[in-house]
């Protein structure tokens, strides 16, 4: 008893730390145990806390908006008239530009239809206003003014017109917490726009965004655009993520590189966001077929990239052949008849190497010259030495 009285302060501290350590253990045991009573209780307390703070956040937001609106709409109107005139002139110029752009847009739509590539994966969205942030600078959390009453659920993607923002974590009836992509606990599947290399995006302790699971590759260069890959089942494919800013070796994971990304959306100054509440692919079989077709096309593109490239001079020859290909007329439309491209190593099976059937005699030996003869016959003998290195390229 004397021991307890003497060390009551230290014992109280130990008891408090122990209780919190147990609470931590309950929370981090993993998603498999998320439905357990302990974890559910903490989630409820979290929701109550958010609910208690939300009215103040809404009030502060309303007050801030009111002050801002009063200032911008009624007080800070210097040069407004000149600005108005300038904008009117700009609109007139833009109308002229629009006519030209509209033509290009129509052409683009036609091409998309031809390719049967319909980018309609974002089904429905809910616009929300940011009313608060996390209470610690170690976490990058936003509080938005829409919740489960508006159809929001955990793990829904949150975007802005500029790019992705993050995903919904906790949902209360009237509010929700959004974990930004630069938070340490966030992640997203991404793809590099031009090289089509896939990676995993993660936030860092410094609030930056990095791809950390790629090894050194000379094709990855600063300035390349990064898009969502759709592989994380959260973000739809093809949304802008950002631009590669810096590539350096990752000291913690040595074979890998730390590829720093400059987010497309300014994560520090977000006022309004869009929460993707519905994905088209879940609703329509047609959209899923489109997605499969697009992925197959992309896989074909990636395979083509890995194959050896065609020489420039051969491409030129191919282009010449295609232009000189015979054409036919069908219903007023000129249709080009496809013609096989010239082969690099002709043999007796190559188009044009076999004599016409009318010249052949049944039972007679083949008169087709060996491949070397064909090749040498089409080129001067002294050009062989210059031809071979080209073939090896």
């Amino acid at each position: 008893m004397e021991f307890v009285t003497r060390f009551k302060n230290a014992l109280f501290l130990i008891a408090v730390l122990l209780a919190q350590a147990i609470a931590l253990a309950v929370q981090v045991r993993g998603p498999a145990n998320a439905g357990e009573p302990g974890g559910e209780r903490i989630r409820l307390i979290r929701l109550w806390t958010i609910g208690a703070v939300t009215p103040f956040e809404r009030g502060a937001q309303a007050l801030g908006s009111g002050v801002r609106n009063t200032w911008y709409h009624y007080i800070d109107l210097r040069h407004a008239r000149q600005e108005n005139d300038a904008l009117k002139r700009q609109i007139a110029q833009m109308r002229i530009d629009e006519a030209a752009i509209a033509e290009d847009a129509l052409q683009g739509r036609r091409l998309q239809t031809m390719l049967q590539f319909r980018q309609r994966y974002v089904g429905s969205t809910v616009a929300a206003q940011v009313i608060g942030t996390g209470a610690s600078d170690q976490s990058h959390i936003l509080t938005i003014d829409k919740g489960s009453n508006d159809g929001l659920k955990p793990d829904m993607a949150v975007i802005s017109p500029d790019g992705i923002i993050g995903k919904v974590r906790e949902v209360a009836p009237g509010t929700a917490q959004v974990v930004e992509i630069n938070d340490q606990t966030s992640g997203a599947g991404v793809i590099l726009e031009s090289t089509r290399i896939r990676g995993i995006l993660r936030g860092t302790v410094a609030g930056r965004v990095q791809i950390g699971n790629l090894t050194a590759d000379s094709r990855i260069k600063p300035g390349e655009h990064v898009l969502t890959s759709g592989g994380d089942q959260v973000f739809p494919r093809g949304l802008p993520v950002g631009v590669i800013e810096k590539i350096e070796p990752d000291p913690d994971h040595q074979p890998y590189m730390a590829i720093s990304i400059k987010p497309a959306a300014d994560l520090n100054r977000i006022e309004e966001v869009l929460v993707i509440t519905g994905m088209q692919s879940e609703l329509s079989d047609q959209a899923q077929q489109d997605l499969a077709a697009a992925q197959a096309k992309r896989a074909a593109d990636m395979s083509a990239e890995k194959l050896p490239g065609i020489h420039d001079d051969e491409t030129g020859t191919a282009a010449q052949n295609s232009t000189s290909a015979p054409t036919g007329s069908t219903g007023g439309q000129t249709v080009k008849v496809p013609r096989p491209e010239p082969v690099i190593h002709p043999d007796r099976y190559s188009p044009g190497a076999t004599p016409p059937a009318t010249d052949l005699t049944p039972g007679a030996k083949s008169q087709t010259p060996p491949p070397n003869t064909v090749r040498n016959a089409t080129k001067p003998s002294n050009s062989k030495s210059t031809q071979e290195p080209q073939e090896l390229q």
Partner: protein
Amino acid sequence: METMVTRSYMSRREAEQQSFNLLATVLVPAVAILLQVLLPRISPRLAIVDLPLIVTLFFAVSRRNPIAGTATGAVIGLLQDLLSGMPAGVNGMAKSVVGYAAASLGSRIDVENTATRAVLTFCFSLLQSVLLYLIQRHLLEIHGFHVLWLHELLRAIVNLLVAVPVYLLLDRWKRQD
């Protein structure tokens, strides 16, 4: 006629122990947490200030009671965790230790001096950074978790600068026992 003078022997801690009314005890931490949530909306750089830590230190040092310091730190830290999306207990544990240590130290040294308070805030800000690092790296085993120590040093300096006027403001709420 000889006057009898009644003298009692009290420890320094008992002599200088201060308390706060219920309104201040609830309102000050609540406002600190609310400001911590709202200030980064004005400028993200303001997130570097840890107002809940400053309030924890103020109450712990003023009351000079380690149990009260621990409880204050735990409650404020847990609220911070619940609002920041972090597992409940990360800031709670760190601030419990800070509250306990600050209250224990407050009963031994003069903490009414502004310079002492500033040094305490600086040191406890760094202590909290170390505790948060230990909890997240070793208790939660978050691989790849790093602390930018230069940033934490800057945070300690900023907290020091903000804490001094805040303490002077909060001193008005004190009630001498």
